[in-house]
């Protein structure tokens, strides 16, 4: 197990370096535009304007890549991620304020769609014939064909505008103030319904299909026959024999997908005005805010690697065969 953790640390380091280089090579030179701005208003030489601009965005792209990289790593060691060029405040504060929102939405949406999806999948596999299976395939195809940005707007239109049931934007009502009071929590949940729905409608379909596929392969096993021969009650067969074995691959893919989700989904968060990691990633890419972008990518890399690690551990712990 230690070897596995060491391996993932190496992966994080490689991914980090790779992202560092990539972000630096991205086209569109922020410094140049800032320098031009200063040039127009201050009437200084281009070189001086560039120096001034450098001070404004608190990192120096002209510095050779290697020293920048070493500089970046040493900062990272102290947990210092630099200042965001657009918001002028330390990246760490932005991440700290954005992470809880993304975690809140992702876990609720992923949890909800996983539970509903897998139960549906197992049930369809268990009831092999009947109308349930084609209905599920149709549902999964329909919901996954619609791109999620379109689904989001449609939900907004139907529930927010036409039926006026759900608020249209933001993470919580402006009139409630954050704290553990009932009003805030109620408005928080009310605001969360639309993003979670936009998130889980296609996810339920995909989990159901995967669960059905995994359950079908388990149904072919002999111990299912033995279980029925033993005269066990149907729900126990479904839970202990079909469920436990079918869930193994699903649990580890859930852990992996959770890691990926923590990167925050840019589309859903920008659409519903949810200040999560995805929202700030979209902003930082738009304005080429390198430090913030770097910090966000770092966070999503860590999330994905921990997700994969968790998947490995979970599948080892749950599946006795691999012990």
């Amino acid at each position, binding site marked *: 197990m230690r070897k596995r953790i060491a391996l993932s640390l190496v992966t994080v380091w490689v991914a980090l370096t790779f992202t560092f280089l990539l972000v630096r090579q991205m086209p569109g030179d922020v410094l140049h535009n800032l320098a031009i701005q200063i040039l127009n208003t201050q009437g200084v030489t281009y070189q001086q304007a560039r120096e001034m601009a450098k001070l404004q965005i608190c990192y120096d792209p002209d510095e050779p890549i290697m020293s920048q990289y070493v500089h970046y790593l040493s900062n990272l060691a102290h947990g210092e991620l630099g200042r965001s060029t657009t918001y002028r405040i330390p990246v760490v504060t932005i991440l700290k304020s954005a992470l809880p929102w993304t975690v809140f939405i992702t876990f609720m949406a992923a949890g909800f769609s996983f539970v509903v999806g897998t139960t549906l999948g197992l049930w369809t596999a268990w009831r092999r014939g009947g109308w349930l299976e084609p209905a599920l395939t149709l549902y999964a195809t329909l919901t996954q064909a619609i791109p999620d940005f379109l689904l989001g707007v449609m939900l907004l239109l139907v529930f927010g505008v036409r039926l006026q049931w759900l608020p249209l934007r933001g993470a919580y009502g402006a009139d409630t103030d954050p704290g553990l009071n009932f009003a805030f929590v109620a408005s928080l949940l009310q605001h969360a319904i639309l993003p979670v729905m936009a998130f889980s409608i296609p996810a339920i379909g995909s989990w159901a299909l995967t669960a059905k596929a995994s359950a079908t392969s388990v149904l072919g096993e*002999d*111990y299912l026959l*033995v279980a029925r*021969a*033993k*005269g*066990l009650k149907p729900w126990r067969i479904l839970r202990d024999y079909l469920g436990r*074995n079918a869930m193994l691959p699903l649990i580890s893919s859930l852990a992996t997908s959770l890691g990926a989700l923590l990167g925050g989904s840019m589309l859903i968060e920008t659409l519903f005005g949810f200040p999560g990691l995805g929202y700030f990633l979209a902003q930082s890419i738009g304005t080429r805010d390198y430090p913030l972008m770097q910090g966000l990518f770092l966070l999503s890399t860590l999330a994905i690697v921990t997700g994969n690690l968790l998947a490995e551990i979970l599948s080892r712990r749950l599946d*006795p*065969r691999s012990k």
Partner: protein
Amino acid sequence: MLSIRNLSIDYQLPGAALSVLRDVSLDFPIGQVTAMIGESGSGKTTLTGAILGLLASNARVRGGQLLWKEENLLGQSPERLRKFRWREASVVFQAAQGAWNPTLTIGQQMLDTCVDHGFPQHQAKREELLRKVRLSPERVIQSYPHQLSGGMRQRALIALSLMLDPELLILDEPTTALDLITQSYIFDILAEIHQEGLTMILVTHDLAAVARLADRVAVLYAGTVVEVGTAQQIFEQPQHPYTQVLVRSCPDVHGGDVVRGAEGLPPDLRQRPPGCIFASRCPEVMEKCRTEVPALVNDVACWRRPV
């Protein structure tokens, strides 16, 4: 104890009905080991499935009865069948590796059937049964299936099948996937169990097992019973030509004459030929055989044999 009356079962395949069992009548007297032998595909497994009510979803029962102490099991409610399974009749399946749930320990899988049948979870019985099949309870109860060898898993299966003291034990190819030493080991165990008066059905194509254990033998061919008799009769004076071929095709340890299998192929079960099912491969076939179906008269279904 259990008697089957003119049972016929078909499998519904896309566009065709495969008639797997045709007009089968068999009796399984109490306390006796009845063996069912025949080539693979002769309907043996379908029969055991029918007894336990575990037929595949596309199986169709065409007719006949399955009398268990005068109660016809066909058409019973799933709940009744569920209670019947393992409490009154239990099965030892063939595939050793796949028969155990990989995510539960052997001990757990032995107890859950008691719970679902309303029996108290008596660990003592579990230990006693494991010792009976010569397995050390301390090691086996806590371990997972993949941690046991093929032979140990098979023996544990036998222990599992006796958890609820069933009145009938069906053994579906118990020794096929095992080496000879383990096989004989299992035969001793089964013989010991048989001594205690348990009625057993032995489904196999391994004649050595039949010779070793069986009191009565029924020979099946392509879904029909062609001959029934004591083990002695079947081995010494096989009546039905198919039985003769079957017995002869088993290599004699003491170096008998060269082995010859039956010529030709088993018939296509989609269109059953008229007359005797074995007609197309029977060395002593005659005109009558091809037109009329021979009835099972004093344990033989063949026109050649005198009435």
